[in-house]
Structure formats: C-alpha cells, structure tokens
C-alpha cells in the first residue's frame, strides 16, 4: 500500500519534469536555432531481488534533442547563416568549444566574427577576422570583399553521444564531435533558422502530462483511501 503511494508520487514527479521540459520548449519558441527537447518516460528494469514479487520500478524522464530542421527566415543580413540538414557551427568559449545552430553572427570591434553569445565563431579551427564586405557561400566559405577568408567549421557530435546544454544557444558535446563532410554541408546566407518547437505538439504533450499527473494523483488518493479503510475498519474491536 505504501508502495502504491510511493509509485504514484514518483509518477507525478515524472510528469512534473515533463511539464518543465515543455514549458522550456515553449519559452524558446522564438529562440533562433533552438532544438527542442523531447521527453520520454522510462521504466528502469527491476533490480530483481530474489524471493520478492515485482514491485514499482523506478520511473525516470530522459530528454532527447530533436535535430529536426527549424523554419528558415530571410533576414537579408549577409552574416546570418542557416544550416540545412545536420551539423552545428563551432564557437570558441573560455570553457572550450561549443556547438550551435544559431547562425546570427556579427562582427566584433576588430572585425572578428562573433556568435550571438559574444564568443568567436571558429573557421578552419581558428577565429576569423573580416575587414571588408563579408559574404558566405553555400559550402560555408567566407569571403572578405571577394577574397577567401576561411571556411566555417561545421561539425556533428559523434554517433550515439548526446549533447549537453549550457544556455546562450550553445551546446556542449562531451562525447566529442567530428567534421561534417564537405559534400553534406549546405549553408544558406541571408537566412536564419528559427526554433524547431512545434506549438501544437507541445500543447498536446502538455495536456497529456497534465492528465497523467491527475491520474497519478487519483491513484495516490485510492491508495490513501485503502489505507484509511484498513486503519479504520480492519481489526476494529466490537463491543
């Protein structure tokens, strides 16, 4: 009985986490290059204890980064670039290299190409300076007044590794990353990738999370009711 209460509580906690993930997706519905997190509830397999019946397994939420393409928006800005297909731009931060799909770049005071977080964007493994009129070609090459200035580093995390988020539209690849082959790279200048959050999907997920939360609460109430009956009715001494 106590176990049922415990399971219900855990189920509620899981749905609460899902709702938090959905709230964050919705808050970032207009964040450029944002990739939504899709929650998945998982049941940890029972660490079978010999001689005991199966009981509530530990529930947990996992979140996967959706790599679906976000909508492209024309901005007309020569330094706005959108990545088509998989891959990330590489940004150098004091904490090490970070990945991003937010291609709204700008030039710093000394002509350095900067990400919206203010950190330098990496091209050919180093930072890049532009003194003249910048333009970006579909293969990610940068031109400085028509002169070749380098090629944007475009990478992807190694297969099977997840990305970690650090805010500022930056992602960390703790499992390492590799260069995307040149023939698979497609960059569109003058356009920007929006957030890949689908409001409809998030609303449906939110309703589901809420109803599951309610159901788990009802289960907790039922367990509580059974306990009450047990306490009040069973073993009552009648005069």
């Amino acid at each position, binding site marked *: 009985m106590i176990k049922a209460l415990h399971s219900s509580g855990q189920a509620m906690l899981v749905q*609460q986490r899902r709702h938090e993930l959905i709230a964050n997706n*919705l808050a970032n519905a207009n964040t450029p290059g944002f990739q939504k997190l899709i929650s998945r509830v998982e049941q940890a397999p029972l660490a079978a204890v010999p001689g005991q019946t199966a009981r509530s397994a530990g529930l947990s939420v996992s979140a996967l980064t959706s790599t679906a393409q976000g909508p492209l928006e024309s*901005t007309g800005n020569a330094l706005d670039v959108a990545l088509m297909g998989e891959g990330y731009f590489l940004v150098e931060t004091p904490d090490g290299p970070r990945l991003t799909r937010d291609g709204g770049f*700008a*030039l*710093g005071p000394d002509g350095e190409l900067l990400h919206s977080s203010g950190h330098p964007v990496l091209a050919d493994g180093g930072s890049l300076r532009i003194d003249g009129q910048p333009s970006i070609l579909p293969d990610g090459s940068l031109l400085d007044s028509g002169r070749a200035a380098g090629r944007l580093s475009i990478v992807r995390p190694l297969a099977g590794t997840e990305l970690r988020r650090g805010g500022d539209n930056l992602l960390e690849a703790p499992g390492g990353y590799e260069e995307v082959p040149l023939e698979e790279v497609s960059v569109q200048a003058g356009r920007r990738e929006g957030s890949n959050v689908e409001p409809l999907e998030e609303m449906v997920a939110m309703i589901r999370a809420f109803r599951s939360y309610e159901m788990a609460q009802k289960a907790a109430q039922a367990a509580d009711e059974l306990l009450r009956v047990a306490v009040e009715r069973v073993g009552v001494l009648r005069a």
Partner: protein
Amino acid sequence: MMRAMSTSASGMRAQQLYVDTIANNLANVNTTAFKAARAEFQDLLYQTIAPNQRQAAAAGIQPVQIGHGVRLAAVRRDFGQGSTMVTGNALDLAITGDGFFRVELPDGSYAYTRDGSFSLDGEGSLVTAGGMRVAPGFSFPETATEVGVQRDGRILVRSDGEQESSELGSLEVYRFANPAGLRAVGSNLYAETEASGQATLGEPGQDGLGTVESGLLEMSNVSVVEEMVRLIEAQRAYELNSKAIQTAEDMLGVTSQIKR
C-alpha cells in the same frame, strides 16, 4: 512546478519585448531612413537532474537537463536599404549604399545619420531636420539662387547674377565596419560604439558606399507585412506560455488535493 512557472514567465517576458520592438518598428514605418530592429533571444541555463545511482547503473539512464527559459540576447538593427521617395527638393538627400552623413551635435561630438532631409538655417548653414549641422559644415551665401548636390557629394551653388555655379564643398560620407553595432540615440541619429568600429571617411560611389542622390529621401526599411506576421507569432507564443503557467497552476491544485 515553480520552475515551470518561472520558465514560462521568462517566455512571456521575452515575447513582450518582441512585441515592444515590433511596435516601435510599426510606429516608425514612415520615419525617414528608419532601420527596423528585432529582438533576439537565447536560452537560459540548464539544470542537470541525475537519476539515482542504482537506476543509472541498472539501465544506463542519462541525466536529464531541464531548462529555465529564455532571455533577451540583443536587439539587432537591420541596416538594409529602405525604399526611396522622390521629393524634388534639392537638399533632400538619400544615400544608395552603406554610407552615413556625419552631423555635429551641440556638445561638439559627432553622430551619424542616413536621414538626408536637410535644409538651411538662419545663418545659411546646412542642417538636419533636427537643426544639427551637417559635417564638414557649409555656409551658403545669402545671394544663392540655385543649389545642386552632385552624386559624389559635391555641393554646387549659383549666386544671383552669376552665370556659372561654384563649388561650396563636399559632403562627408562615412562608413562603419559593423553598422549593426551602432547605438541609436534618437532623432534618426546613431552614435559610434566599440562594436561598430570607427567611422571611416569614404568616397561616395566607391566600395559600396553609395552615391548621394539629390531630390530623394530614403524611407524606413520596415516591412509592414513582416512585422504583422511577427506580431501574430509573438502573440501566439505569449498565449502558449501563459497556458503553460496555467497548467503548472492546475498541477499544483491537483497536488494539494491528494490529501483530503
């Protein structure tokens, strides 16, 4: 639950700022040489919630990262060319390119503008619509009857009784390495910042600086349709975030009802 509420609140705040910039763009749709601005966002920090040791070991469950919403990263200005309007006034000037006129502020410092609706003040100086002197400073003779501005910025004046017009001086046209870094100071003026880089004097018509066109004014580059679409987008996103807050509140209500 409280986290979901503050996450969604940050989303609503962000959309509000988005609407603020759209409203300002729309308010300036007929402002000479106005450049549309756009709010840009970044996600906030994430908290990593690790599963307990036993679960992680048993199932290889990854820690889940839960975000805390969104924040304003910057308001960027689009310095794209606005459309031009014919006015026929010789002292209405438009720059067809990246250049800026330099004006002298009353405190002696300089600001830059693309609004070329110039006129003469009582002393015969060329001034902006706001009364600031246009660099390098011109004094038109009182006897001037005909004024012309060449595409390379030279100002020609013909005085009463003269056959030929004479050159009064040349307008200075400046450019910036990164115009998006300029700071708007109001009255259609921009100030140089560290991010914009130093203003460099250019030659009109060279290197994309643009020529000076007399009798034309540059209109704002605000696209009303685009702004309306963004307004709808912002409003719906605002609503969605408020729904997430409502849901969080309902969940809190459900929680408090566990115990009857």
